[in-house]
């Protein structure tokens, strides 16, 4: 676990992504400290209603706020300094104020989500290759992967797909030469220094080391994604039999 750094001040650059979105860039690349700023900002957005805002997308070092420019203009008619400005400037001024008052320590404790994985066999056809590539035994790969402490930096690419940070470089493996046409939902894979779980069947070139019986994408639930940006993840190994049982009767 990363110790909580005490109240960092935030600042960010506002960049227009067309006439209906502003990208709020915190800078600092892929880093837990940057993530804390992103998280503090999205927690504010989750609990406050911004007039004209439609939704936001958070990423490694940025949060993009989507808005309706017509609504933003209409809602700020009374604002003497801003009413003649284009909507992205109005939104930028509002967001800049919010960012200036953020403190990273204010956020909630990270949630820990445990994900059961049946490693190897049919469900993880590339496990042996990953071991061989890193000159490790299959069991060592499983140990290293399941002992890691992973941070969900962002969710994207596919519904419920977590971009995870924290995988040991000891098991990093390049993508497959020829991507598979379809990868089953629940597949746990490695691509370079990244690890991830496929929520829906997708074509892809990741090295598949196992599969989880957990559904990461739950279209009929709210939220529809099991994992949220800011969650911490731990994988734990289960047997094929446990996997089958879990599939039959999800907890």
């Amino acid at each position, binding site marked *: 676990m990363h110790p909580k750094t005490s109240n960092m001040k935030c600042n960010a650059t506002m*960049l*227009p*992504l*067309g*006439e*209906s*979105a502003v*990208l709020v*860039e915190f800078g600092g*690349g*892929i880093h837990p400290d940057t993530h804390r700023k992103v998280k503090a900002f*999205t927690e504010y957005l989750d609990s406050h209603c911004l007039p004209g805002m*439609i*939704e*936001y*997308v*958070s*990423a*490694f*070092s*940025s949060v*993009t706020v*989507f808005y309706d*420019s*017509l609504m933003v*203009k209409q809602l700020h008619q009374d604002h003497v300094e801003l009413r003649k400005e*284009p*909507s*992205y400037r109005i939104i930028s001024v509002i967001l800049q104020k919010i960012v200036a008052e953020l403190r990273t320590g204010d956020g909630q404790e990270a949630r820990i989500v445990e994900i059961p994985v049946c490693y190897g066999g049919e469900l993880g056809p590339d496990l042996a290759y990953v071991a061989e590539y890193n000159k490790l035994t299959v069991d060592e790969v499983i140990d290293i992967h399941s002992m890691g402490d992973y941070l969900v930096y*962002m*969710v*994207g*690419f*596919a*519904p*419920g*797909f977590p*971009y995870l940070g924290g995988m040991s470089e000891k098991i990093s493996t390049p993508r497959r030469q020829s991507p598979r046409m379809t990868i089953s939902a629940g597949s746990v894979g490695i691509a370079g220094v990244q690890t991830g779980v496929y*929520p*829906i069947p*997708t074509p892809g070139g990741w090295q598949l080391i196992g599969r989880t019986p957990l559904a990461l*994408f739950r*279209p*009929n639930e*709210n*939220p*529809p*994604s099991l994992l*949220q*940006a800011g969650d911490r993840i731990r994988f734990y190994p289960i047997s094929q039999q446990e996997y089958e049982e879990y599939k039959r009767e999800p907890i």
Partner: protein
Amino acid sequence: MSIKVLQPGLLTSMQDLGRYGYQKHGVIVSGAMDTYSLRIANILVGNQEGEGALEIALLGPSLEIEKDSLLAITGGNLSPTINGKVVPMWRPVYVKAGSILQFGACKSGCRSYLAIAGGYDLLEVMGSKSTYLRAGIGGFQGRALQRGDVLAVKSPHGASLDRTEYFKRKYSPESFVSSSWYAGRPPIPQALRLTTIRMTRGLQFEYFTAESKSQLLNASFQVAAQSDRMGYRLSGVNLQLESPLEMISEAVALGTVQVPPDGNPIILLADRQTVGGYPKIGQVAIVDVPILAQVRPGATIQFQEITLEEAERLYIARENDIQELKTAIQLKFL
């Protein structure tokens, strides 16, 4: 009350204005490629403008209308006929039960929208009736229509009921009756003509070579055959960065023009992913996305740069035009 699918067409799917509020969970927006046409189709039959409608791409379906209904067809002209007779577009059309609505050759544009008074009777998934094809959710069973599907239609109510009744009174024993007026629409691209698409500079525009920047705005691009609801792949000019750019994934938007390492730009559309890691050279103006959505693969486009302020002004003007149109249509039924 329902519509039966006799022939499904190439890709006929239920769409609305999209699934908003779930992008932070990686759930894509989806929705109509040409939202303008979908909105107008709904407005014509007295529905809420964001009601679900069928998006009909390139090669249209053949549908049996099983009950007297008021419908409207907008978007690209895919030669719609009812019992063999040409149906006028961009206006309400009252159709008798048992009529066969058939789409034929693509005359202009490439996507038609079919709205029906009352709306299609489907459950919303995450607040939307749009089909999310890849995840297999939303719309009609999470997929494109297939032969034999039966789409339930809700009974018209409010404005959609009033309008249905209005045309019922005008009905003569022909296969359909329509209004003597029609809604204005943006120019629908013709297959062989060059379509101009307005754009603003993308966040990484400055990182491209001077030649690439100039070519982006002066050369023409062909919409590649692999283009789909996710995005339009363009070919014709190789756009290159001045020097390699360290990019980490961040959000993309409708109309984002991104450039992968091969130099062929991709314009992200309705089924785009929520995030991307390629440099963004441009951003298509919101008002021109519906026009772009009607450009057929194989056709050519060229970009014209406008300022962000201009893009916003165009958007606000268009929204005002739609409001005006709504009022004008309401007045027709007073």
